[in-house]
């Protein structure tokens, strides 16, 4: 009996060890990636040592490249960088915002030249690590803190947001549009505002009902949020999150759906309209090239249609031609730089005049927006 006990305890221990390594595996998947890709980099470096110094590039992702949204757009940019320079960038997936992020970024900083941190919540970790590694270049997406060796970059999400709003305003029949917001951050708020202004420009009675899912990526919660708006009778539903759950819920009821960040047409072929997309690739290539030329400088970059960073996905097959023409005409204006979304008069949804008649809202104000325009049903949570 004793023998059996000892054997079984030994077995359990082995299994538990297995479990533990599984547990740490999850949290430290990133480290494996670092280790596996490190040798290739050094190999490349020694090969090209005599010519030009090849940058060692790393990307930190909040999700997985297959999320069909935000992280996928960054990963597509990463692929363009890899092809252009013939390198293999290190990627670290699923890095939670917080202390884990700081650890991961620091680890990457030790053997990389450029680190792209691609989520809002990596802001402070990036700045903290950058202080310790002044020779490494850090690029943080969507943040507002820069340093000598930390630059930020972001899209003018309000431009494609305006275009999807135009489509929504033209397509709605009862004037009720739904928008499932992610977190109430300026980035989401100005997109919803631009969306609403556009919808009202073609349909003055249009109202946009907003609920906040407080998620970037949680299909079940986002579906619930979408359904609660659909139950209100909205006939166009836009979603800010990275999952296609909202579009799918809309499709089940035959309601027009739009998503965010990446082309989500395949999830609802019949009822899909369009959605904002982002092309980071050209910008990433430019930044890496600048680093190689020694001309990289810190700064806060904001790219829209003119810069080729923002775009919209191809229209769904059932979107009427006149709607497509309307949107494309406005897109042309964005590309020419002849149209500004936030041109007064703009009232907020409590009736206060926020932008004077004929005035154009300064970019700094747009990037810190915390109020919703007239015509939005909903409020910004405290």
């Amino acid at each position: 009996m004793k023998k059996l006990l000892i054997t079984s305890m030994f077995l359990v221990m082995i299994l538990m060890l297995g479990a533990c390594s599984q547990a740490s595996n999850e949290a430290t998947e990133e480290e494996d990636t670092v280790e596996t890709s490190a040798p290739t980099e050094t190999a490349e470096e020694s090969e090209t040592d005599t010519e030009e110094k090849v940058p060692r590039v790393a990307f930190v992702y909040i999700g997985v490249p297959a999320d069909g949204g935000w992280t996928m757009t960054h990963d597509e940019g990463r692929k363009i960088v890899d092809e252009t320079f013939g390198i293999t960038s290190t990627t670290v997936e699923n890095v939670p915002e917080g202390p884990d992020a700081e650890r991961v970024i620091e680890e990457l900083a030790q053997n990389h030249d450029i680190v792209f941190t691609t989520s809002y919540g990596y802001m402070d970790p990036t700045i903290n690590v950058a202080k310790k590694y002044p020779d490494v270049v850090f690029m943080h997406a969507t943040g507002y803190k820069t340093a000598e060796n930390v630059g930020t970059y972001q899209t003018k999400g309000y431009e494609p947001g305006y275009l999807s709003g135009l489509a929504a305003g033209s397509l709605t029949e009862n004037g009720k549009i739904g928008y499932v917001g992610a977190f109430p951050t300026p980035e989401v708020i100005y997109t919803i505002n631009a969306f609403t202004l556009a919808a009202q420009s073609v349909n003055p009675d249009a109202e946009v009902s907003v609920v906040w899912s407080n998620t970037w990526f949680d299909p079940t919660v986002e579906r619930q949020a979408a359904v609660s708006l659909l139950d209100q009778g909205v006939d166009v539903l836009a979603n800010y999150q990275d999952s296609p759950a909202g579009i799918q819920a809309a499709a089940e009821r035959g309601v027009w759906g739009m998503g965010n960040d990446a082309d989500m047409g395949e999830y609802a072929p019949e009822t899909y309209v369009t959605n904002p997309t982002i092309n980071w690739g050209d910008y990433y290539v430019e930044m890496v090239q600048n680093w190689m030329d020694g001309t990289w400088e810190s700064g806060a970059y904001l790219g829209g249609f003119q810069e080729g960073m923002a775009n919209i996905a191809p229209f769904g097959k059932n979107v009427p031609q006149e709607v497509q023409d309307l949107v494309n005409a406005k897109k042309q204006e964005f590309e020419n730089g002849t149209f500004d979304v936030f041109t007064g008069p703009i009232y907020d949804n409590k009736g206060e005049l926020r932008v004077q008649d004929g005035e154009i809202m300064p970019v700094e104000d747009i990037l810190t927006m915390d109020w919703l325009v007239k015509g939005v049903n909903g409020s910004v949570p405290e």
Partner: protein
Amino acid sequence: MDMVTLILVAAITGGTSLLFAVLGGILNEKAGVINLGTEGIMLIGAVISAIVFLQTQNLIITFIIMLFGTGVLGLIHAFLCITLRANQIVSGLAVTLFGTGLSAYIGKSVAGAPIPVSIPKVDLSFLNSIPVLNAFANLDIFIWMSMMLSIILYFYMYKTSWGLHLKAVGDNPSTSDAMGVSVIAFRYFHVVIGSMLMGSAGFYLIMAYSPNWIEGMTSGRGWIAIALIIFARWNPIYALFGAYFFGGLDSLGFRMQIYDLNIPSYFLKMIPYISTIVVLMFIGWKNRSKPSIEPKSLGNPYFREQRF
């Protein structure tokens, strides 16, 4: 449809995956085995369903293979906890961590791919004119299955001799053993079946609720289901209502936003756990002089020779 009906429908559809998971958990715990692997088993169930359905386009084959796969996972937990007498908490956590990692790994190829599935619905249009009951007019077949399952399990657990044996195995295994009931076989059987039900929760989530595989798509629903076991006091019928209550909270939160009632969503997110604690306290206080309703040998491996 009026407001009440809409909320009811949202609560039922939102709660069904929870219901499958909690029924599975009840079977496990009634047999005296804690299974904290719910989250991992749900994820494995979901990812297997996605992969198999994309290959075969057949709902029944998908369901059967999913049952088999999650059954194997349950078997591992059972082997660890029953035969090897491992710590059930540790084993359960290991199953969850293992399931989370494995599902992400094997799901890479199907991640994000839309699953072209349509679950048959049960059309009861004669209910349409009746208020409240019209919520039941057009629900899908798995919802009805889950409701019937909780009723069947109720009768099984409280009205059949097998169910009474189950209770005995969970409460006092040595007595059952003396009666000639095989404690080991009983525990194995219920852990495996319970795990299959947890897998069905994942199956429902991905087939009916959010039809594409996304890493970690259960996002904590397995843990809510574990809270729900206690909330439902190991009773399948209470579990039915508890699951709909918890399932409805999410959607209730969004409706409150629409009507501009300023209740922070973080508050709503903690309601399932708070209400579980409140129910525990309430029951504990009411029954403070009576024996607890929890299966008495919950968490204890069974040694035939050992005396407690």
